């Protein structure tokens, strides 16, 4: 083998190793977090943890059933509000967003993507909590929906843009009206990407705490009434982690593990939903 060929091999191996090492470095924190959560939280998780509401301060036992239900209700409601708006905006941007309105919407979405979530919480407090006179799960859901919309809009736009122009032309040449081309062919081709983007956005807001602090507020009791304050896992973690009791700290770890688990399930669900329908591709 010539010297040049040897050198090429060496450089190739070196670069591959470098990239693999950097990749490992990127996932290392995640592995540490997961490991830490399991180590510190798993022991506190038992059946009661999922079925009971928190015990009064100082007493041991109790669970986070109210927080799990609350997370489901608030995030679900946020999705109900945010998904149609976000996906609709994304499709508009990709299909009809060439003009000034599109530029404006895109700009606003980008700015909103960079807005700290606590600001969105203040916004929801100002426009919902204050006029109504009390904290509510609905206000929290609206805050989360406002956070979701720009994320979903921009990812949906990207996904719809990725659909080859030739497909659009093929549908139009077949005598499809423009809106039908958008929905039946273009959006359908982009659907798996849109679903993935939406689930990622849902998973993102499921862990939000700041915008819920002065909207959903938190609640020690189990409730599904969206007009009332409601507990979520993230709020529960915040309360427990900043509290004075060791018992609470353990519960905070356990709640964090459950929250991560929920996000993981959501991610797996996203994978399952968007699997290739026909297998072979």
């Amino acid at each position: 083998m010539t010297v040049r060929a040897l050198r090429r091999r060496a450089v190739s191996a070196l670069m591959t190793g470098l990239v693999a090492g950097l990749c490992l470095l990127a996932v290392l924190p995640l592995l540490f977090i997961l490991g830490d959560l399991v180590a510190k939280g798993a022991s506190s998780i038992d059946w009661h943890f999922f079925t009971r509401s928190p015990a009064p301060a100082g007493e041991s036992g109790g669970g986070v059933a109210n927080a799990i239900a609350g997370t489901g209700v608030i995030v679900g409601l946020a999705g109900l509000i945010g998904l149609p708006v976000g996906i609709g905006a994304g499709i508009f941007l990709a299909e009809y967003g060439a003009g000034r309105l599109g530029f404006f919407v895109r700009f606003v979405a980008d700015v909103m993507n960079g807005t700290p979530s606590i600001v969105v919480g203040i916004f929801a407090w100002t426009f919902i909590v204050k006029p109504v006179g009390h904290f509510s799960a609905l206000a929290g859901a609206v805050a989360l929906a406002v956070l979701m919309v720009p994320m979903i809009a921009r990812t949906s736009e990207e996904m719809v843009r990725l659909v080859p122009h030739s497909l659009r032309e093929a549908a139009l040449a077949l005598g499809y009206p423009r809106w039908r081309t958008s929905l039946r062919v273009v959006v359908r081709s982009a659907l798996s990407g849109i679903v993935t983007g939406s689930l990622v956005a849902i998973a993102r807001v499921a862990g939000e705490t700041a915008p819920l602090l002065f909207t959903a507020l938190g609640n020690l009791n189990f409730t599904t009434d969206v007009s009332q304050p409601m507990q979520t896992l993230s709020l529960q973690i915040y309360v427990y982690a900043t509290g004075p009791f060791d018992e609470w700290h353990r519960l905070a770890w356990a709640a964090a593990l459950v929250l991560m688990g929920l996000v993981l399930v959501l991610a797996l669900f996203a994978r399952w939903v968007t699997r290739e329908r026909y297998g072979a591709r």
Partner: protein
Amino acid sequence: MAPVDATLLLATDRLTALFHRHAAVKEVSLLFPSNTVTAIIGPSGCGKSTLLRCLNRMHELSDGAWVTGKVLLEGVDIYGGEVDAVQVRRRVGMVFQRPTPFPTMSIFDNVAAGLRVDGRLPTSQVATAVERALQQAALWDEVKDRLHTSAVALSGGQQQRLCIARAVAPQPDVLLLDEPTASLDPAGTQRIEELCHELKRRYTIVIVTHNMQQAARVSDYTAFLYLGQLIEAGRTRDLFTKPRLEQTEAYLTGRFG
């Protein structure tokens, strides 16, 4: 020029197609006799695809694209004020250079796509129409056992015949083929060319090709376009054997283009 005695289905009258202020097709007047294959040939960038895209009003979908002159479909100008472009495209089907099966749809749904738009056909008749279209596109025997599998699993040549089936399923009057074999291997090319001879019994076909041999093989009439202008048109046999213009002969013999 093509003889006027043939049944006149499709014709252009001083058709000019522009992108912003640049004219890609200049004052082209052509007749496309019914149930014949007309080939449009010419070097790259001569405007042959643009001309084709004017025939089903696809041209106007591009940025800054517009048209002057007329395209007559059964005597009616498809650019007339009261004509709906979407309706025109249902009567004038099109197949593109690269196969464009809808990736989210099965083979069956691909062919049925044009039938189902606006629910033009009762469901019971869709299956019959799909089979007929696949037969016409000479694809039925290859796919009849897997109609409900993905269309993108087909080979390139099969995909292109699927696109032809999809285009003919709604029974258009005219079929436009835009370099339909450009991305196919010789075997696939041959099948499409054979198909042209079959399909012209039912449809009026206009095919754009940069391959002169292909034009000679499949077409009854040929139009030679250069720099957006119609240089010469006539029966393929005549045009290829005794072109009237020096420029045509030069192109046909490979001296330019």
